[in-house]
């Protein structure tokens, strides 16, 4: 079997990332000393990733921005609770994920038929290769929204945020094996959801 089948062989796994020192550590320490301006640097560093994560969870730009803002405010307020045992970014992801799930639950209570986005109009009619990139992204978002949230969040953190297993395990506070299992099961389910479009690819 040719080696090109192995995804991780081609793209270096970020498994060893958590062993590296946290690049945010010095800034966090200065923030704890009351330097509010330094926290702005942390916001600039992580705002896009948190915004993306919230957007993958919620599917709405306005809500994603709200959640990302709230994440930073919570982090600033609870900074003393961050002990530096995990990366600061991991801690931020944890807050963002919890806030997103809370908001998701509220949305589910409000909408009887669910908040999930509709299937893109192009789906099922044209092969994905002919879809515009923007539409493909919509398709992936739709497929992600169909997954159970325990699979979805692992896939989002792994693929969208490019986090390592260890970082995801820290964020979700789950064993590494559970993370790996959920990732592969979620990925298989995602493949089944996208099968009608993927099989159109010549």
């Amino acid at each position, binding site marked *: 079997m040719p080696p090109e089948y192995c995804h991780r062989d081609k793209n270096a796994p970020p498994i060893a990332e958590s062993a590296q020192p946290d690049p945010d550590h010095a800034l966090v320490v200065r923030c704890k000393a*009351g330097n509010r301006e330094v926290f702005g640097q942390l*916001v600039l560093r992580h705002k896009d990733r948190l915004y993306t994560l919230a957007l993958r969870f919620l599917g709405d730009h306005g809500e994603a921005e709200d959640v990302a803002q709230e994440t930073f405010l919570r982090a*600033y307020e609870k900074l003393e609770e961050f002990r530096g045992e995990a990366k600061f970014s991991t801690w931020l992801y944890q807050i963002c994920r919890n806030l997103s799930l809370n908001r998701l639950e509220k949305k589910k209570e409000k909408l009887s038929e669910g908040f999930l986005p509709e299937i893109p109009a192009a789906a099922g009619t044209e092969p994905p290769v002919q879809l515009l*990139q923007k539409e*493909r992204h919509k398709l992936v978002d739709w497929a992600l929204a169909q997954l159970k949230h325990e699979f979805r969040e692992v896939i989002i953190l792994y693929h969208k945020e490019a986090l390592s297993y260890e970082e995801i395990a820290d964020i979700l506070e789950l064993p590494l094996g559970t993370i790996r299992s959920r990732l592969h099961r979620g990925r298989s389910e995602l493949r089944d959801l996208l099968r009608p479009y993927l099989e159109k690819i010549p």
Partner: protein
Amino acid sequence: MAESRHPTSLLSLYYEGELPLADRQVVTEHLADCPLCRHELSLLRQTVEILDEAPLERAPHDFLDKFTRRLEQDERFRLLEAQRQQTAKEQARVSPDMQDVGVPAISRPTSPVFPRLTQGLYQFWQTLCFPLRLKLPLYTAVGVAVVAAFLFRSFPEGRSANRDKTLTKTQTSTESPRQDLASIDIPAPQPPQTPTSSAQHVSNVPPPPVPKPSPAQLPGKQEILLPSPPVAALEGAPPVAEPIVWRVEGEQPEVMQAQAKVLAQRISGVLIVQEEDGLLLLSLPTEQLPAFGQAVRELGQVQTMGAETDPAKPTTTIQIRFLFALDSASLSS
């Protein structure tokens, strides 16, 4: 079983390269013979590619501005910031080494006009007052010392104040020269001593304060007003022996005083108790008094005042005043 024949559940792990070597070899062999599983693996690869294709979303460009505004508008966060600064200051005091491990410089009060001055004052304040575990006992000790010094100083001041008060009272109450003379602290009669030891003793006696006479009080002759004794001494204490006073008048009082001093020093057993300008206080053996009086009379015109000579006493105290005589011509004639 189809599942056992088609390891679809392992394809994701296989794709990630996370299968153990034995399983990996089994799946690899199966993929070589199974187009269905190869198709499944291809779909999985496309799925991952699409997942990874989605770029990182960009937060709105004013995201940081909004966040900063929310921080500034909320009083809760301002208090939190101030509290953190205070905590950091306290930690820096407790462990100054924190500066070396990446703790930032504590926010210090700065002035836009005199930042260096403010910085210097701040450092001085910190040096002066911290750490408290050292400064507190030190300042307590200093405070106790200051109080003790104040109390110690207050006693001599009180005594000197009493003495000044007595002096003022004496000056205002003196009417007759007899009362003035009674205030002189005359030593008790002493046995004859050698001149050297006498001079030494005299030098140790502090002269009493003698106010200078005003010109209005002395139209023709110089008057020396001596302080009267304290009231308690006049009323309750046993009476002090009054000295015999000789008023010696002549053209040159200074010369007369110097000559009288020389004459006195020739007498054995003489003690010069006090010597001032125009005043000589002597203590000499009583038997030598007539001879000394005769010698002094040769210097100028002498008037005897004060107490009488008591032959029973071994020594007699004589106060000699040397005054300038205006009518020297008549005196000489």
